[in-house]
């Protein structure tokens, strides 16, 4: 009867060597970067350093010049970079753009990429880092087919805008000729794009929230009022405890979706639910974490020179990308209500309402 626990549960943790390298790299980055600014531009120096370590194409296949990493490692990289508020387009360039090029069988010269989904008139809104890219990977649906094109930056019109985090978040206008044709990709690719984007954003927001918890803890231990550290007041302890709990819940949801993606190479039909759970928990956590952390920090946390906004602004900017919180809650509502009374639990444990015996 005695069962080996290893046959019952599989841990899903990133490669410890990679985590060690990343931790050191971003600690070094944090220690040497300039003071925070309201407007945030691409850090090309950091990008080149990441490139030198093979981290900008972490998930690219080795035959295509990538490092052959999986989603568990990629999520760790995205999270740690976000915790350091590193202004680099890792999500856009690697797990989204690089992946789309590979899926379409298009060449990748390694130049900086961002991604977007232009509308039928050739316009794409809110394209992060567009002005910094050497070319833009476009994905669109045309007469029931998904198509991909890699369009050089000098062939698009760019209206420069910035998101809530102060990062480049431009409007891109394509020449419709460049979107004529393109390379047809499988339906699964087109449908996965939104999920991959949503999960990448979740990993980034969780990483940033974990750093917020640290920043808050450092502050409430050091700041004294009424003759003692403010962290000794029970009201402050409860505020911080709530931030930490929400962050932990968001982490659990995100890690579960990442593990499911990694175990099935995104083929698991439960991915929509798993990503939705992550996006929902992360998005609601963001409300608690941003509000609570600014409350705990007092006035200093509202200043330009303080690190806090370099985290809270991207947290809010990214939680609204690849579907608003409301969109995702509605998606989950639709899945849950169509699962109905008898299949809701199956949906929660497997990600879909019709179970197969082989997985949960």
């Amino acid at each position: 009867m005695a069962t080996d626990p290893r046959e019952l549960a599989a841990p899903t943790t990133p490669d410890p060597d990679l985590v060690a390298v990343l931790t050191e790299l971003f600690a070094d980055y944090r220690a040497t970067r300039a003071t925070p600014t309201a407007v945030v531009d691409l850090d090309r120096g950091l990008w080149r350093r990441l490139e030198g370590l093979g981290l900008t194409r972490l998930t690219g296949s080795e035959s295509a010049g990538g490092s052959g990493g999986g989603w568990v490692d990629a999520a760790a990289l995205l999270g740690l970079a976000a915790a350091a508020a590193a202004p680099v387009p890792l999500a856009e360039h690697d797990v989204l753009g690089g992946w789309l090029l590979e899926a379409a069988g298009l060449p990748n010269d390694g130049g900086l990429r961002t991604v977007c989904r232009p509308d039928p008139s050739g316009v794409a809104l809110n394209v992060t880092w567009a002005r910094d890219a050497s070319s833009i990977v476009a994905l669109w649906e045309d007469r029931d087919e998904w198509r991909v094109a890699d369009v050089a930056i000098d062939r698009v019109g760019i209206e420069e805008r910035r998101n809530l985090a102060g990062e480049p978040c431009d409007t891109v206008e394509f020449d419709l000729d460049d979107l004529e044709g393109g390379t047809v990709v499988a339906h699964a690719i087109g449908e996965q794009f939104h999920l991959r984007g949503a999960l990448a954003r979740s990993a980034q927001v969780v990483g940033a929230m974990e750093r917020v918890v640290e920043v808050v803890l450092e502050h409430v231990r050091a700041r004294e009022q009424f003759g003692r550290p403010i962290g000794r007041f029970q009201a402050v302890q409860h505020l911080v405890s709530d931030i930490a709990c929400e962050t932990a819940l968001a982490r659990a949801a995100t890690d579960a979706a990442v593990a499911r993606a990694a175990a099935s190479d995104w083929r698991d039909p439960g991915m929509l639910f798993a990503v939705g759970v992550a996006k929902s928990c992360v998005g609601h956590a963001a409300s608690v974490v941003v509000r609570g952390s600014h409350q705990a920090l007092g006035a200093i946390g509202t200043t330009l020179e303080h690190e806090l906004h370099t985290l809270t602004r991207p947290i809010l900017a990214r939680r609204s990308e690849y579907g608003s919180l409301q969109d995702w809650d509605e998606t989950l509502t639709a899945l849950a209500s169509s699962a109905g009374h008898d299949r809701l639990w199956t949906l929660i444990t497997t990600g879909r309402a019709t179970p197969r015996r082989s997985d949960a």
Partner: protein
Amino acid sequence: MSARLVPPGARELPALTELRLEVRAFLAEQVAAGAFVPHVDTWLTRWDRDFTRELGRRGWLGMVIPTEYGGQGRTYLERFVVTEELLVVGAPVAAHWIAERQIGPSLLRYGTEEQKEAFLPGISRGEVVFGIGMSEPDSGSDLASVRTRAERVDGGWRLTGTKVWTSGAHEADAFFALARSAPIDPAHRHDGLSQFIVDLRAPGVTIRPIISMGGDHHFNEVHLDGVLIPDDRVLGEIGDGWSQVTSELAHERSGPERVLSTFQLLAAAAQAMDDGRLPTDPGLGRHVARLAALHHMSFAVSTALENHEDADTAAAVVKVLGTTGEGDIADYVDTLTATGWALDEELDTLLHAAILQRPGFTLRGGTNEILRGVIARGLGMR
């Protein structure tokens, strides 16, 4: 990165899922056969000794108790999936819950050989039913202040005092009573406490019902009037009571019963939305998402406990989030309903029960305020 509050997640593998589906299939049959009516908060409010014994026959009780004591000798992970399946279906599990969850493991850890042999096989068969006698009229969150006295007498101890909120005492065979076996030393308040195994039918025990606000009888006041406890019914060592009651907290606080008490209501609400009896609302998705994340988190804590890792803070995180969420589900469904709107009776029954049980969710087993303090300590703030 700061030390993680909650251990990293783990993926459930097919061997575990197989057990899950086996339990699920059995429970579906039971529901179809009308063996029980699914309900909310069944681990506190639904007693069915026959059902409990049937679970024992199937090997789904005493799962982590070694086979030499009549248990199944299985893992915490297997126990986890069995308990999850029992809770989501709203099965009547209160008769064995306390014994299975905490009395068994405590006996295993602190009990004498004779005590283990006396109680563990019965617990594993679902025949011996236990309660918990910790709280008193003047000792709630501040448990170390208990006043029940244990006085040394020839061959044992005499217990005198009053326990309250004792869930199921009127149905149970015995309970663990926390009592003061030495006068309080204000400098060492946690010393001088001991736990005793009290036969609830022994002379000197008086059990009076305390009726809950919905009119039901779940918990009790238990008077102990010089109840004689023989030496062989002292749990472990005299004076070790505090470390005994605090050492098993991770098991008591991180389980799926801290998350799933209102699952049947949420499932009924999902159905009602699909049928158009409740308005479609994104709040449903939000609650489902939190529940799914808590399912992963609670599993992660079980994995850590299986590996004998410390998980006290993580368990407090699960309990704060889980009990808040299960209560919020009750309130959420209530906000969707309109007076005079013809809901189906099933949803109505579940909703009313959930709302009346809700206040207890964030109190029992350590209040959420106390648990936030535990988390703050885990974060190094105190």
